[in-house]
C-alpha cells in the first residue's frame, strides 16, 4: 500500500511549472536587470484587466448555461455586476495619479493599452501552448505501439 500523499502529484506539477521559470527569472534579474521599477504596476494592470476580461467571457458563457436552466437572469446579473466592478476598479485605480498609470496620457488610453497587452500575453501563451502540446502529441503519435506484457502466474 502506498503511503504517498494524494496531493503529492499536484505539488510536483506546481513545483516543476514554477521553479524552473522562477530560477531563470532570478538569474536574469541578478545578472542583467538594473531596475525592476514598474513591475508591480504591470502586475496590477494585468490583474485588473484579466479579471474584467475573463468576467466578460464568463458572462457570455451564461447564455449557454441559460439555455439549460430556462434563461435565469440572476447569475447573468451577478456576472454583469462583476464586469462593472472590474471596470470601476480599473478606472478608479488608473485615475489615482501615478499609481497604475504608465506612459499613456489618459485613463482610457491606459485601459485600452492594458487590453492590447493582455491580448499579446494571451497570444504568446497560446503559441507556447501550441508548440508544447503539438510537440508532445507528435511524439506520442510517432512512438511505436507497445505490446502488453502479462506477468507470468
Amino acid at each position, binding site marked *: 500500500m502506498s503511503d504517498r500523499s494524494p496531493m503529492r502529484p499536484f505539488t510536483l506539477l506546481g513545483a516543476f511549472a514554477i521553479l524552473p521559470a522562477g530560477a531563470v527569472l532570478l538569474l536574469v534579474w541578478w545578472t542583467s536587470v538594473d531596475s525592476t521599477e514598474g513591475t508591480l504596476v504591470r502586475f496590477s494592470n494585468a490583474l485588473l484587466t484579466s479579471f474584467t476580461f475573463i*468576467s466578460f467571457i464568463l458572462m457570455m458563457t451564461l447564455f449557454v448555461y441559460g439555455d439549460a436552466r430556462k434563461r435565469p437572469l440572476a447569475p447573468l446579473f451577478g456576472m454583469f455586476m462583476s464586469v462593472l466592478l472590474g471596470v470601476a476598479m480599473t478606472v478608479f485605480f488608473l485615475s489615482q495619479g501615478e499609481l497604475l498609470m504608465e506612459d499613456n496620457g489618459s485613463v482610457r488610453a491606459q485601459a485600452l493599452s492594458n487590453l492590447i497587452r*493582455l491580448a499579446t500575453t494571451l497570444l504568446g501563451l497560446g503559441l507556447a501552448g501550441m508548440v508544447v502540446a503539438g510537440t508532445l502529441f507528435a511524439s506520442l503519435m510517432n512512438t511505436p505501439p507497445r505490446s502488453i506484457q502479462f506477468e507470468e502466474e
Partner: protein
Amino acid sequence: MEEATQAIVFFWLAGLFVVVGGMLAFFSKVQGQRRLGGALFGLGLLSLMLTPWTLPFSPSSAFGHLLGSLVGPGVLLGVGLYQIAFSGHVPVGRLSRTDRTVGIVMVVVGVLWLEAMHWWVLTPTYPGEVNRYWYIFWPTMLLGVLTLSSAAYVLVGLVGQQRQQEQRLMLVTSALAIVLMVLGAMFNGPSVDHQRFATELIFAAADIFGAMVGAAVAILLFAVVLTVYESQQPAPQRLAPPTEQQLEQASQIIAQHVGGESEDE
C-alpha cells in the same frame, strides 16, 4: 470618417468579433451559429491584421502588425506539427512519410523564423522601431514554453508509463527555452538590447502572474454566483412510490420480455 470612429470600427469592433466569433464557433451547438462564429472570427482577425494600413495613425495598429508578423511562423509550426502527428500511428486518415518530412521541415523553418525575429534582421519593426508588442510577446512565449514543457515533463511521468522519450523531449524543449532566455538577457540582438530584453522578461512574468490571478478571481466569483443561484432553487418534486397495481403491471411487462422461449434455440 473620424480617426476615433475608424479605430472603433477597424480595431475594437474587430477585436469584439474575434472574441464573440471564437466563443460562438467553440460553444454553440447550432451549426449555423458555429459557421457565423467562424466567419466573424476570420473577419475580425483580418481587420486587426490590416490595421497598419487602415489605422496607420493609431498606436494600437502595432498589435495588428505583430499579428501579421506571426502568421508565417505560426502557420508553419501549427501545420508542421499536425503533419508530423498525423503521419504517426493513427488508425484512420494517416498521412504519408513525405508529409512527415514536409512537417519536420516546416517546424524547423518556423522555429528558425521565430529565432531570426530576435537574433537576425527579421525583428518586427513598426513604425521605424522595434514593435513594442514584440517586446511583450517574445519573452511571454519563452516563459510559457518553459513553464508548460516543465509541467508536461511531470504530467507525462505521472499519467503515462514508459514515456521516457516524451519526457526527454520536454526536457530538451525546456532547456532550449532557458538557453534562449539567458542568451537574450546576456547578448544584444541586431535590434534588441539585452538589458531591455531582460527587463521585459521580468515584466512578462508580472503580466502572466497578474493575468493568472485576475482570471482565478473571476472564475472563483463565477463559481460563487452560480452556487448561490443554484442553492436558491427549490428542490425538484419527488414522485410518490409506485402503487401495488403499478408494480403488478410492471412485473407483467418485464415477464413478457425476459421470460419464455429463447429465439436462437
